[in-house]
């Protein structure tokens, strides 16, 4: 028991929190990407696979060119390509988004294993650290927020940008509209399907960048199944976050905290060392259960403020196709 308490308390030190923020960058990009895509009405179920394939692409390009920065656009391109396959299959060919997404998950996972085998164990190219001068000396916040690298900073900015875009701009509002009620958006002159292609691609790009953030920073290097299961976590966090970028970002950080907690537990419970790293995953799923519990929701109806924080409503037209005329 004391082991648990110790592990828990140990988390609340600056170094741990800073590492949680640093380690969250990949998931933050990918979660923002998937949130955008799903808000527009397209579920990208391939995330686990496309993120891995993009992560590989990022690593390979960075490795071959010697420049870490070239890896990110390559990864983004992979993400875009996969996302567009889903969008095209659904919008033009009326294929089921989930079906195409799943097959792509399988395919991209295998592709990453196949194409990456000669890159296993190669020395990674790192994103250079970059402490923001001045800001990084602020006690606590300096260490936690400003003592990282560009990729981490940009991940936080991406969250802010996604939120501001969605809720503070006209186009962002239109984005919400096409996923909520495409007929109504269409009636207002918004080009629903064109935008769905666009936002799916944007989502794919961010997912790709998220993958690259792992192989070039958080877990630099490549091995078989490097980013395994992270894509499924992204999908769960999007739901957990109620399709809201800020809530999803909080979910990502919570997940990171859970992982840190599991890590702290390892020395206390060595026999579970293989098991513990995977525990945060079912924990997230459990959280989903709670968030969706109908009985709980009924009780929450009496507290509208709480409800608005915890409620998890998908965009009404998610997963569906929109046909003009």
């Amino acid at each position, binding site marked *: 028991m004391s082991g648990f308490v110790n592990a828990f308390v140990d988390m609340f030190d600056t170094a741990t929190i800073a590492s949680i923020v640093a380690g969250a960058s990949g998931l933050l990009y990918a979660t923002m990407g998937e949130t955008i895509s799903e808000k527009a009405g397209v579920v990208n179920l391939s995330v686990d696979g496309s993120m891995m394939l993009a992560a590989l692409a990022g690593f390979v390009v960075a490795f071959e060119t010697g420049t870490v920065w070239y890896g990110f656009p390559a990864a983004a391109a992979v993400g875009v390509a996969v996302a567009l396959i889903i969008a095209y299959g659904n919008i033009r060919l009326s294929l089921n988004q989930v079906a195409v997404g799943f097959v792509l998950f399988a395919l991209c996972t295998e592709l990453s294993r196949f194409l990456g085998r000669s890159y296993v164990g190669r020395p990674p190219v790192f994103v250079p650290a970059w402490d923001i001068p001045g800001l990084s000396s602020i006690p606590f916040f300096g260490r936690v927020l400003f003592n990282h690298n560009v990729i981490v900073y940009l991940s936080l900015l991406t969250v802010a940008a996604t939120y501001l875009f969605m809720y503070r701009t006209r186009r962002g509002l239109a984005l919400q509209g096409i996923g909520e009620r495409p007929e109504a958006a269409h009636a207002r*002159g918004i080009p629903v399907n064109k935008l769905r292609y666009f936002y799916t691609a944007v989502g794919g790009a961010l997912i790709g960048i998220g993958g690259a953030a792992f192989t070039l920073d958080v877990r630099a290097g490549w091995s078989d199944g490097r980013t395994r299961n992270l894509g499924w976590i992204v999908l769960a966090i999007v739901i957990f976050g109620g399709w809201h970028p800020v809530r999803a970002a909080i979910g990502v950080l919570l997940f990171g905290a859970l992982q840190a907690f599991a890590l702290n537990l390892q020395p206390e419970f060595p026999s579970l060392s293989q098991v513990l790293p995977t525990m945060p995953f079912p924990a997230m799923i459990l959280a989903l259960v709670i968030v969706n519990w109908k009985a709980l929701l009924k009780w929450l109806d009496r507290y509208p403020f709480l409800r608005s924080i915890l409620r998890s409503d998908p965009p009404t037209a998610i997963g569906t196709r929109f046909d003009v005329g």
Partner: protein
Amino acid sequence: MSLELRNIHKHFGAVRANDGITIEIETGTLHGLLGENGAGKSTLMKVLSGFHAADSGEIMLDGEQVELASPEDAIAAGIGMLHQDPLVFLPFSVIDNFVLGSPGHRRLDRRKAKSDLRGLCERYGFNLDPALPARLLTVGERQQLEIVRLLWLGARVLILDEPTTGISADQRGKLFATLKSLAAEGMSVIFVSHKLEEVADLCDRVTVMRRGKVVGEVELPVPPEHLVDMMFGQAVEIRGRYPVPLGISHLTIDAVRTATGLLSEEPVSLDVKAGEIVGLAGMEGSGQDAFLRICAGMRAPKHGTVAVAGKNLTGKHYRDFLAADVKYLPAGRLEEGLIEGLTITEHFVLTGADKRFFVDWAAGRRRAEDQVGHFNIKGTEASTAESLSGGNQQRLLLALLPVNLKLLLMEHPTRGLDIESADWVWEQLLARREEGTSIVFASADLDELLRYSDRILVFFSGRVIGELEAATSNVDEIGMLIGGRTADVDMGNSR
């Protein structure tokens, strides 16, 4: 802005929805477009608002020809359309709905939009709270939101498609007043409806359509029989109803009340005998649908009892009601009645009496073929549910009903059907009645209610506000009750 449609043609497959339509609408007029369901009014308005491209013909705005290939074009041309079910985004706030899709700066200035919204609302006497999620608005309020939005976007032609379905009499009055003042300000308003009285009440001119063509255009006022004549080609006769001896009580609702929401304040009681037809009237959301669901066993009341043929079924599961020979047919034929992807035969097997584990497909197909012929369904036993037209789907739904039905509950039995199909549906229902089935149905069509019911229950604001004998009542009386006005008390907009 003056509007002219010249020789508009539009077909869907073999159906000529619009067959050479020519209409002229002058600036600042309230122009009615009158016709029965299926006359082609909606298609024409969809062409005008950019949803469909006409096959041929021209559209002139202020004397200049315009191409309306998409809703974007129509909006740019100043044409605004208010749909029957206002296309609002339900979870979004009023202000977000107001602003969504409007041109302007990248940054969304909600404050400016809010003041614009307030200004417009004040001008027309609307009361819309910008922060409220749209799903909490009534249909009438959603219309108001759409109207101010279209005005804000600079619409000079306003098309309203069947706007009075599902709004209170009070809101209707307000809507008409708004439209009149808009017309006075120079807006061209097109009022599309199948409701004669309203068109006659509101509009300056009327174009009547029948079967895809324009059959006449008159300046109002004009005697209503004239309009009826144009709409139907001949005067409509009330189908004779002959009395049927009533039997035992099939449905006894005693002082039923729900825990919350509609029907929670005042108890409702109803006794329906075999062979009786009871119509439920009222605006959408007044409680009739909730009441039907209680009768069907889909919802248990908090107080009171529900008994079917003497057996107390209060609080029992929906399946117990089914077993007691009660059947509930919701309005959504494909959404809540038939199953897409399944053939007619499969539907019959699913609802059939043969409950054995292994299906006798040969017998099932035979039965299906039988019923297809008997009910004149345009299709074969292998046709899938979604391949049938609306009217044929309704036929199938009725064919699937069990033989000995004590109680049939229907939500809007003839919604969206053309006259021929609607007549046929009632023929079937009356035949059932003769066999002793009790029928309780909700409808928005006052004529239908008067024509077929023995008694009519009128709902308003979650309670029964009146009960009438159809034989001695009339449209006005029902209309008043629907609007909340009893003989002595005007319930107004109480909500």
